[in-house]
């Protein structure tokens, strides 16, 4: 199939790697070329703010697929080569060093970059972000027991880093804009649960505070000044204030962008020969009926699969139920679905103990669920959300009941439920 064509995949993360895999699974026999600005094979990023801070993890332990996989599937890799421009008329990408490559179709999977705060002192030594392997090794080299680390942002990356750092004896303070942890993604009860855990481990939480500037001495950060007037001493700062989609390349090439590369439910951009997947996109959600942007491993993998199908002319839609996770200490937070539009929250189990779950309902339909250390209920919730199952909140709320008894309408896909 299309064996004379060249499909160029720009990016070195989950989406590019998975798309290459899926293109071969779709039966594409032409040339596949992954162009990444990073020097490494596409690798796993979640360990960067967890285990990777605690101990030395060689890059050879992190590839998403080993070199043998790319060789076996005849997937070419150009690593350490940033793409400079895309010429859509000539269907050509230009890389540094006057290299140009002609494409027949292209996938943009350029990911995101950490948000830098527009405040003074961001370029001082000791101020870190985490996105790639080198960021991790830089930060790890400075993490010493007793060092004072101030983390700006109490989202997944900030809190996972806090958990890792405090367990190695670093003095950790988390500064968060909102009044609670992970406010964008979990319910207040879950925020409180995690706040207690972090406090128990000696992490200091400064909520509802805004960083005003990083103050330095001899070019190195020594404190963080807050708008509220406080000053927090710091040997190190980690800015974990979210990600910004990386879509400069697409915007420069004249593709429709809107805080991200605009794609349809088949991951097609405004150019029929160019597709996009992952953190860099804004996509319409079939399930949620609006344009959303998701920064998650799951979304990158799913969009890559859909994009590969579309590149091969097969119709597949990005409609699956998104899921997310975060590992902090021995706690695994799992979230499935998006909570937008809920009208009721049901907590099942003791919110002081791991194993509890939080269910977001609209009418009686399950929209979203989050849980800690309870993978079986997470799986069940995912199936229910996918099947638009309705539940009886009274039964759901009572943790002594069997979860299955809470369903009102038997979801259509009987076999899906049968697996639990």
């Amino acid at each position, binding site marked *: 199939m299309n064996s004379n064509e060249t499909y160029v995949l720009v990016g070195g993360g989950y989406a590019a790697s998975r798309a290459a895999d899926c293109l071969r699974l779709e039966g594409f026999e032409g040339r596949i070329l992954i162009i990444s600005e990073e020097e490494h094979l596409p690798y796993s990023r979640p360990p960067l703010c967890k285990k990777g801070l605690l101990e030395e993890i060689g890059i050879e*332990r992190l590839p998403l697929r080993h070199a043998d996989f790319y060789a076996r599937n005849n997937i070419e890799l150009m690593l350490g080569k940033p793409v400079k421009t895309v010429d859509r008329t000539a269907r050509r990408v230009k890389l540094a060093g006057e290299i140009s490559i002609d494409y027949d179709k292209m996938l943009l999977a350029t990911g995101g970059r950490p948000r830098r705060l527009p405040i003074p002192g961001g370029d001082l030594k000791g101020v870190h972000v985490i996105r790639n392997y080198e960021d991790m090794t830089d930060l790890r080299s400075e993490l010493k027991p007793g060092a004072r680390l101030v983390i700006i942002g109490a989202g997944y990356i900030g809190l996972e880093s806090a958990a890792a750092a405090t367990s190695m004896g670093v003095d950790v303070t988390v500064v968060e804009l909102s009044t609670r942890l992970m406010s964008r993604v979990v319910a207040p009860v879950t925020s409180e649960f995690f706040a207690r855990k972090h406090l128990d481990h000696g992490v200091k939480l400064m909520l509802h505070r805004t960083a005003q500037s990083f103050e330095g001495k001899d070019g190195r950060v020594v404190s963080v000044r807050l708008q509220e007037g406080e000053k927090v001493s710091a040997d190190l700062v980690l800015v974990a204030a979210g990600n910004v989609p990386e879509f400069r390349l697409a915007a420069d090439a004249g593709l429709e962008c809107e805080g991200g590369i605009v794609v349809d439910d088949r991951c097609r951009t405004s150019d029929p020969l160019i597709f996009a997947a992952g953190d860099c996109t804004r996509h319409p959600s079939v399930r949620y009926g609006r344009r959303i942007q998701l920064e998650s491993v799951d979304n990158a993998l799913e969009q890559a699969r859909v994009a590969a199908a579309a590149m091969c002319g097969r119709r597949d839609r990005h409609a699956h139920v998104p899921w997310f996770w975060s590992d902090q200490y021995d706690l695994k937070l799992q979230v499935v679905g998006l909570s937008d539009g809920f009208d009721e929250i049901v907590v099942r189990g003791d919110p002081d103990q791991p194993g509890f779950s939080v269910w977001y309902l609209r009418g009686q339909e399950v929209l979203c669920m989050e849980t800690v250390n309870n*993978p079986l209920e997470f799986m069940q919730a995912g199936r229910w959300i996918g099947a638009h199952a309705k539940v009886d909140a009274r039964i759901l709320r009572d943790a002594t009941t069997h979860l299955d008894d809470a369903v009102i309408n038997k979801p259509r896909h009987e076999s899906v439920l049968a697996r639990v």
Partner: protein
Amino acid sequence: MSKQVGFYLDAEACNGCSVCLVACKDKYDNPIGVNFRKVIHHTMGGWEQDADNPGFLAPKISSYSLSMACNHCETPVCLEACPVGAISKREEDGRVLIDENTCVGCRLCQCCPYDAPQFNESLGVMTMCDGCVDLEGTGEEQACVAACPQRALEFGDMEELRAKHGNAVQSVEPLVDPQITQPSLLVTPHRNSKPMGGSANEQ
């Protein structure tokens, strides 16, 4: 160190017949494309100057086969890559097992350099060699071990296997550097193969 089970392969004896693969596939009723065990046929060499006939080239080639499944590694990368914690390393014997009830089918465990985790499309989950955990305590051999007509495969406690096969190594070409995942694997290398890493008994 707690007990660790694993496989031993005599690459001198293995003739690449793939009966192990078929026996495994039959036992687990795996669909097309899903293979817990694989047989790698590795070839090497090329044309070389013939010392006996100056000016002539002789084909100095050789090949050997390696039968591979999950190596129940001591530091498995699949386990670390799994976002939902569906992969675990069993305390009592070091088996690396996938819990199909909590697997979300994201395929991230395909980071395994031995290509052990296999995606079963119809089940929507990853599946993998479990060292025939169902046969535990029965005294029966693993399906692949029992089927091998060359008696080239063994499964058991790694310490015992190491003691029994003193010259075995942890990896040979074309397998990856064993330092990456510390596979519970012992191979008596084929006479033409180049071992990688140290002898298993040097550790």
